[in-house]
């Protein structure tokens, strides 16, 4: 389906290609933008729609510059109609396009869920395997900006509960780029959660057109004493915590599932087989969070390897408050991870 080699590609000298493909530091936001750009160059069916994604560049600047390159038809500013635009994307996908919807804050998915859950996720099944909905919804989640309860949630667990959807949650610029490309190339609806506090974090990202397959976890750090499964911003915090813990000779292994659906169970179970201990860390509220799913899988399938009870460290069961101190206290911080890790290992 994808149409490789757009015109401008032909003009590139060998040198420019090498230059373009080289690895350099990009922010998470830039990495996402690069994925969008590469996909849009390769495949005319890919287009973007969302509120303020054009000249404004998106609420977090991710789509900056894209309307200049691809025009208003393919970088489509929309009215404030989350249900409507998501439905439009469903219809466009069902008729052959590859829309990428931008929902400004993942809290607003609450308005679009009929189209995501009752339509996009189920159409193929309801139609007995006919039709497909290759649709990506990009949306920022998480707290830390002081935007309070209606702009700070982490509700990714909801979407994992819906057969027919895939759920992606990148924790680094490298992963963000590779996973977004996989998401856009996927034939199914994919919810792509970006983390607000990660947008400005930098790391090496190749300019090449690499893809990270959905469903492959990544071991961000090896260790033998304790497995920490962490997602999104918690990957970064877990890595920092692990540094500290190394000083105490606690060797933590950090597994980033990267995609919640499909989930790389095997990688997690193998790690727990090695370490015998599991701490699951996420920002989302603990009760009903996806950490429970991961913990339960291990409690069932990795039970015999467990040397200690499985622990979950997650958001408090409260809405996110505005006050900075409270906001921080609402979700796991580095020191909390260190504390919990110590407890598990020493108990």
């Amino acid at each position: 389906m994808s149409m490789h080699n757009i015109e401008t590609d032909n003009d590139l000298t060998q040198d420019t290609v090498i230059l373009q493909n080289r690895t350099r530091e990009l922010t998470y936001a830039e990495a996402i933008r690069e994925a969008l750009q590469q996909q849009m160059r390769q495949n005319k069916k890919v287009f973007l729609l969302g509120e303020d994604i054009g000249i404004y560049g998106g609420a977090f600047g991710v789509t900056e510059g894209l309307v200049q390159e691809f025009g208003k038809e393919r970088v489509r500013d929309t009215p404030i109609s989350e249900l409507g635009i998501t439905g439009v994307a469903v219809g466009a996908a069902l008729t052959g396009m590859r829309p990428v919807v931008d929902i400004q804050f993942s809290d607003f998915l609450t308005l679009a869920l009929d189209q995501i859950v009752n339509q996009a996720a189920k159409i193929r099944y309801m139609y007995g395997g006919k039709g497909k909905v290759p649709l990506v919804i990009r949306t920022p989640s998480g707290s830390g900006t002081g935007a309070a309860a209606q702009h700070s949630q982490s509700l990714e667990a909801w979407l994992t509960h819906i057969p027919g959807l895939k759920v992606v949650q990148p924790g680094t610029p490298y992963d963000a780029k590779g996973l977004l490309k996989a998401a856009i190339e996927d034939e199914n609806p994919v919810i792509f959660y970006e983390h607000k506090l990660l947008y400005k974090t930098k790391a090496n990202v190749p300019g090449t057109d690499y893809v990270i397959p959905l469903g492959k976890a990544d071991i961000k750090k090896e260790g033998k004493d304790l497995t920490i499964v962490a997602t999104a911003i918690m990957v970064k915090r877990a890595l920092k915590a692990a540094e500290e813990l190394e000083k105490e000779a606690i060797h933590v292994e950090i597994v980033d599932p990267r995609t919640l659906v499909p989930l790389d169970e095997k990688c997690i179970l193998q790690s727990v087989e090695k370490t015998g201990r599991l701490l699951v860390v996420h920002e989302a509220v603990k009760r009903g969070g996806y950490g429970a799913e991961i913990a339960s899988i291990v409690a069932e399938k990795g039970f015999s390897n467990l040397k200690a009870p499985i622990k979950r460290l997650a958001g408090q069961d409260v809405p996110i408050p505005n006050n900075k101190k409270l906001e921080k206290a609402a979700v796991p911080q580095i020191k909390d991870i260190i504390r919990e890790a110590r407890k598990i290992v020493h108990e």
Partner: protein
Amino acid sequence: MISNYSKERLVGLYQTMLSIRYFEEEVERSVKKGLFHGTTHLCMGQEAAAVGVCSVLKQGDKMTSTHRGHGHSIAMGADMKKMMAEIFGKATGYCKGKGGSMHIADVDYGNLGSNAIVGGGIPITVGSALTAHLEGTKDVTVCFFGDGATNEGSFHEALNLASIWKLPVIFVCENNEYGMSSSITEMTNIEDLSIRAKSYGIPGMTIDGNDLLEVMNITERAVSRARNGEGPILIEAKTYRYNGHSKSDKQRYRTDEEVSKRKKKDPIQRFEKMLIQSDIPEEKDIEQIKQMVIEEVEAATDFALASPEPKVEELLTDVYA
């Protein structure tokens, strides 16, 4: 004007309306006999809207429908055998028995599917029209929904989107006076639902949805406008639902007299009379057509009954593409 259409076409239209009527009567009998699992929403009385609108579409055009969607599917040329099999939950049905009465679809042939969420199909239609726009085809998309659906937020958002992007959508509101038990006159405070078009700066019109030729005539104009890039339109087709909302409806919200009165404006009888008056076809041919349709519908049931259930392994397939 009846003279605008060939005899063949007129007979075809008549036959399609009859197919819907007899198909629904057959479904009703099957419900009573308990032949299938799940609910169903019959569209008897509303045949002219479905047939009138869909008959002016071309290959490549698309349509979305509702929970009350059998008529729309038949009007789009669906195979009654595969429809009935689907309603019966059989492996030979349009959706291999996974969708049932409320999800008949045939995406490759423009039927983007019935929808069990009131208003759920409306934004999807706009997306389909956006594809046409982006791909530069001249295909239009028809969007069927009920009077009740016009109070859903999805209606509002979708019509606005179609309007600002001038997309080729024909929004067809089948106003059958009720949403389940609720009279639309109590659920809105306006005379005609087509007034709502004004909120989006698009044309709106209220027509007699039981007059096949009027429906065709208006839709034809709407479709050619849309194909020309002149944007969407809202057509309110006034009609009436003869049966209860679904199989469990006790119909306490309306009187038998009301129903009988409305049945006097039956779209099929009206069209039949007109045909007979114009001698197309002759009265004896009418009987022949009826017989043919009856047989077709019976064959559909036979096919459905004889068809196998899906294998239990089918449960786990088709979740992901």
